[in-house]
């Protein structure tokens, strides 16, 4: 049976109108998020991951505008509804947790005050009931002695506990979609393992969809069902997780997978993706990856490729993806 997505992003374009020029932060992004599933969004810094998340929730700063595309939540286009309706959706249907919980949590209110407020905003309960619910939530996300912790301020908690408190707040209204933007990047790996385990448990229990945004391919491989790879504001590859890692077709995805130091294989040399991540004010012509691509041809400098379907649920934005297949045969031994 074909499942229908809870959240669908279609041809999303978000630009920032700055003094230096137009930053095309998100420039054609499509993906679907399904109930109970995790969609991974991976890419290097500045490729537009966070702006995609902020656009979905419409919390961009005043310079940023969604200039094209749709964000469909149960067939309602969130880019079209008014701010008042949008406010009902934020936190209730779609919740977000950020990399640095210190920024998202208000330092002058206790953890409890903030969660209680979030609960009362969307549910018809009084303050006492909300407090009981908040304590339950804190216990659920693994904060010890929640009755005490609830009255502490964010700076009195460790990084891991703050992230747990953020998750508790995000979950307070049982959202359909949880956007996790680099949720563990600021944490130690042993704490990261605790938080990822917690998110999986809660997903099993609540059946929510998760959008996991990260630059860590390891987190993606272990947690995502489907994966979007972004480069310079665009989706360059979209596939289920096994296909993406076993059979990448985009030169950038392929390069990334060989450029990371790995624990699971012996590497004699890391692959070098030459050059640098492009400056969004001066994106290259044609395929935005062409200055760094070892498979490029003259056409790539002139024309921008569309997303091409290369398999069941597998699309790639590259004219010459077959070349990656050939290179795979040739080079596998060199880097592994």
């Amino acid at each position, binding site marked *: 049976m074909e499942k229908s997505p809870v959240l669908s992003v279609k041809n999303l374009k978000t630009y920032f109108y700055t003094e230096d020029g137009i930053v095309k932060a998100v420039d054609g992004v499509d993906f679907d998020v399904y109930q109970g599933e995790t969609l991974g969004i991976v890419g290097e810094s500045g490729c537009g991951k966070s702006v995609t998340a902020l656009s979905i929730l419409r919390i961009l700063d005043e310079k940023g505008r969604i200039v094209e595309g749709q964000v469909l939540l149960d067939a309602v286009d969130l880019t079209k509804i008014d701010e008042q309706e949008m406010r009902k959706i934020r936190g209730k249907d779609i919740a977000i947790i950020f990399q640095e919980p210190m920024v998202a949590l208000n330092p002058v209110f206790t953890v409890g005050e903030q969660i209680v407020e979030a609960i009362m905003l969307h549910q018809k309960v009084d303050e006492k009931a909300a407090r009981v619910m908040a304590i339950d939530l804190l216990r659920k996300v693994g904060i010890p002695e929640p009755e005490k912790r609830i009255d502490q301020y964010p700076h009195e908690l460790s990084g891991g506990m703050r992230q747990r408190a953020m998750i508790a707040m995000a979950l307070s209204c049982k959202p359909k979609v949880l956007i996790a933007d680099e949720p563990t990047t600021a944490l130690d790996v042993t704490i990261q393992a605790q938080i990822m385990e917690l998110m999986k448990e809660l997903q099993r229990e609540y059946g929510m969809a998760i959008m996991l945004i990260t630059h860590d391919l390891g987190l993606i491989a272990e947690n995502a069902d489907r994966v979007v790879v972004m480069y310079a504001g665009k989706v360059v590859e979209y596939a289920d997780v096994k296909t993406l890692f076993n059979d990448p077709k985009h030169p950038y995805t392929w390069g990334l997978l060989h450029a990371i130091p790995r624990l*699971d294989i012996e*590497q004699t040399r890391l692959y070098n993706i030459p050059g640098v991540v492009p400056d969004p004010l001066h994106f290259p012509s044609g395929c935005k990856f062409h200055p760094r691509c070892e498979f490029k041809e003259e056409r790539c400098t002139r024309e921008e490729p569309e997303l091409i379907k290369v398999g069941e649920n597998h699309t790639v934005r590259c004219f010459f993806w077959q070349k990656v297949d050939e290179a795979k045969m040739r080079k596998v031994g060199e880097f592994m």
Partner: protein
Amino acid sequence: MSAILRVENLVKYFPIRAGVFKRVVAWVKAVDGVSFEVNEGETVGLVGESGCGKTTIGMVLLRLYEPTSGRIIINDDDTTYYFMPTLRARSYIKKTYVDKFNTMLKKFGSKDAVLNALEGVDKKYAEIFFNEVNSSVGKFCSSLLSNIDEKRRQFRKNVQIVFQDPYSSLNPRLRIKSIVGEGPAVHKLVKGEKELIDRVRSVLEDVGISGDYMYRFPHEFSGGQRQRIGIARALALSPKLVIADEAVSALDVSIRSQIINLMKDLQHEHKLTYLFISHDLAVIKYVSDRIIVMYLGKIVETAAKKDLFDNPLHPYTRALMSAIPIPNPNIKKERIILKGDVPSPVNPPSGCRFHTRCYMAQEICSKEEPQMREITPGHWVACHFAK
């Protein structure tokens, strides 16, 4: 193989002050008795989670912080007192060497017996003490302190650091030529403007940056390029030991592999020795010959890379390894999830510092501190139950 760096029982405590009189109310035990060696030409990886003391070790080695106690020996010279004020240095030399030699003399009965029992830097200094200065404390101190300015200069030339943050570690008001050329000029490695420019050009080209860029400012470069400039600055002095503190952690994945490969190439070309500090075990595995794992101010395990990965012995090392996500969806990994947070280094847990989170802890662990034991040659671990 000879040790270029030997660290013995290194301790660094930071005071926490409070109240109007800024009295010391407690100590952050950032590094609490750490010993290790780095051999010439090898890369030793130092890994552990945030706050375990990695950066502090680097800063103490460079003497940007004074050690609280311990010895830092470089190429069989004790450098610990190099940057102390004279009185402190004399008292350090007396406590560390004179008192030790005299105690040994009483016990062994003859100078020769003492000399025979000693090795390395201790033997070298005992020879000076007994034979050259006739057991005179004053002359011995003066002898070790002679040419101290030259010793300091040599030290500053031979030990270099590459920092994590390519943005804040380069002075934004200086041109690349001044940033990279400062060291060689100060240390008089070059004579005149022409030699300086040649030197800067050649190190910049070593790190993959065109020499023509030497008149630009740091903000005109990308993060990866700035990190290359940071490396060029360290290399410009032809150092022997380079401490890289999270040198690639702030970089994007694709840029990170460029810098790691570059550092490996430069190591071969310039016969460098690296102490490579990182919280990222995958990076550490890729670059290191030997690995030191730290937890809360102490070393818990150290071994050759292969031994550590084939046979991790400390429960913390195992948990750390199992916590790292593997970019391979075909592998389903057994994960050890540690309970709780990393404890504070102000009040570290009694006994084994890991016992509050250890899944193998027994009663003894909270009472007795496990000592480092060599389980197989070169593979050391501090756990009561490792075998």
